[in-house]
């Protein structure tokens, strides 16, 4: 299996009003070729920040990649030149942004927007790029005659399909899909994801599937990581995390779901709120809300424990042998 992405000890901060937002805190993550990794978390967890970091799109003065490395196919993203990054984005790594209504340029036809990417990245003529754009539209179920139309002439579901066509036009190795169907109705979501699964499988694309929906992850992903306050608190295969959930936050997420196939009356929400990212609590960031909290949780930040490849960042799973010596 090829290792396509490796994120190590990443720290990303945002700066505003003399306060510092600790958006990503010591995050490490890796992905292999052809795998679909679901990244689950609620608003403010840092998921979009992670995606933007992978594309090296965190901009000063508001944001800064403070430390850590990200390697794509063993190449250090942070050491790439502007020119190299331009080549990378849209071709090797592509992104589907959250809101299809605003992700497309309203003054260009959909055909032009896809052709633009193809022309930039592949050594073809403009006419050939346009043909490729038409072909991509057909692939996503949009008749190629509509290539000359503008985004406003399409419905939400079709716009999102255009965005997908755009993201896949140059056959990227890694696709960052940031809540690709959140803005869509559930029956259109089913259509769009069905299509995406098909395209991804054909090209063996690796996907980072960012979502807040545990249901979508179960149906579309091979692996899953839960994110909380800028950290990955649990990671494993779908079987591992859904079959034997470790982290109390992940358990809390499952407990909050009004699972429509069960009959219980009251839901079990996680009490309280996400911590203020400019003022994270001492020790474990989840400790103020955790039903299993112990004294050590409020003092020491938990390290990663890995059991059969299933990772969890929680004192409940800490082994007895002294891990601090291994750091």
């Amino acid at each position, binding site marked *: 299996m090829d290792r396509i992405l490796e994120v190590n000890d990443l720290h990303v901060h945002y700066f505003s009003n003399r306060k510092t937002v600790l958006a990503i805190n010591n995050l490490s993550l890796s992905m292999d070729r052809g795998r679909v990794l679901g990244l689950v978390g609620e608003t403010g967890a840092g998921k979009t920040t992670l995606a933007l970091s992978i594309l090296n799109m965190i901009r000063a003065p508001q944001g800064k990649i403070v430390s850590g490395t990200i390697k794509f196919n063993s190449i250090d993203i942070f050491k790439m030149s502007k020119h190299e990054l331009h080549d990378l984005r849209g071709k090797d790594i592509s992104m589907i942004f959250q809101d299809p209504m605003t992700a497309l340029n309203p003054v260009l036809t959909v055909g032009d927007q896809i052709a633009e990417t193809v022309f930039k990245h592949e050594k073809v003529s403009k006419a050939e790029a346009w043909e490729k754009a038409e072909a991509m539209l057909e692939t996503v179920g949009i008749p190629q005659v509509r290539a000359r139309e503008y985004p406003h002439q399409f*419905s939400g579901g079709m716009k999102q399909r255009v965005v997908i066509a755009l993201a896949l036009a140059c056959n990227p190795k890694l696709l960052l899909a940031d809540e690709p169907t959140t803005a869509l*109705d559930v029956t*259109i979501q089913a259509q769009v994801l069905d299509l995406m699964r098909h395209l991804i499988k054909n090209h063996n694309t690796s996907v980072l599937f960012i979502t807040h929906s545990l249901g979508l992850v*179960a149906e579309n992903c091979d692996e899953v990581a839960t994110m909380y306050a800028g950290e990955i608190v649990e990671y494993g295969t779908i079987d591992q995390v*859904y*079959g034997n959930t470790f982290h109390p936050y992940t358990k809390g997420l499952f407990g*909050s779901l*009004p699972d429509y196939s069960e009959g219980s009356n009251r839901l079990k*929400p996680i009490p309280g709120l996400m911590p203020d990212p400019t003022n994270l609590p001492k020790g474990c960031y989840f400790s103020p809300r955790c039903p299993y909290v112990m004294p050590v949780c409020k003092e020491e930040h938990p390290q990663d424990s890995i059991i059969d490849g299933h990772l969890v960042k929680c004192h409940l799973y800490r082994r007895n042998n002294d891990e601090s010596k291994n750091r």
Partner: protein
Amino acid sequence: MLSQDIESPILQVSNLKKYFHVAKGILHAVDGISFNIERGKTLGMVGESGCGKSTTGRLLVRLHEADEGSIIYDGKEVTKANPREMLALRTKMQMIFQDPYSSINPRHTVSSIIGEPLKIYKKVKNSQEYESKVHSLMATVGLADRLYDAYPHELDGGRRQRIGIARALALEPQFIVCDEPVSALDVSIQAQILNLLMDLQEKFGLTYLFITHDLSVVKHISNDIIIMYLGQIVERSKTDELFAHPIHPYSQALLSAIPIPKLNARKERIILKSEVSSPINPKPGCRFAPRCNFAKPDCSERDPLLREIIPGRFVACHYAERFL
């Protein structure tokens, strides 16, 4: 047998219609719907964008004027109420809005937003009574006392939604239209708010119309459900019966589209063809026919009526019996 034992529904809606005149023609937002809600119960109204559910909610509290049809609340015809009668009705019928960011005034404090109805309807005699009532409402919805003078921008979506709920409760209503009250919230906050709404219903005997696109939420909170498509009701039944066995092809597709957060739950998913047709100048016949996997030629010719095909199950489909 006392007459109180045979209670009529608190809300009776008959052949309700709302059309909007747009450049291209007439948009049939709500096209002849009828339903009842029993006192103390929750009716879930489910559908995707453009089905007319929000417009229906607004018609009930008369934020829109109906073009046709009747809305009878506790024996009173809402559509024909004069302004004075409407004022009285509004103390009984309230609304919670979808977006906790745009439905409360950002320039007012929490207490001012919650207390405004009390002032308008002169429900309190002096400032002590006002403060006491507002504090009590805040406690009911779980807003801390110290937030009395806070501004909405200082609070997260969940807390803002609680402000909206407290405001809706201020006049001690009997009936609340909940228009997607948790859609804009994170999953764990959704659960908190849903629990709150259910507790309030139990405590105050409230009746809800719960509008949502999220089937898993509606299953949890509703006794009965109606499914809407392009301004019409396509199915109506008790919640558990609908989930156990959806009849209308659209209901079947809707239920099958829900992603299940469980291992090995992958099932036969019904993928619908194409997109929702336009609600502007709709053609005769069944509005779902263009997307229906079971459509026959006559489906696009005759309008299907909502009919009770087995006791308690209402379906608008010429061939509903096939799906029993």
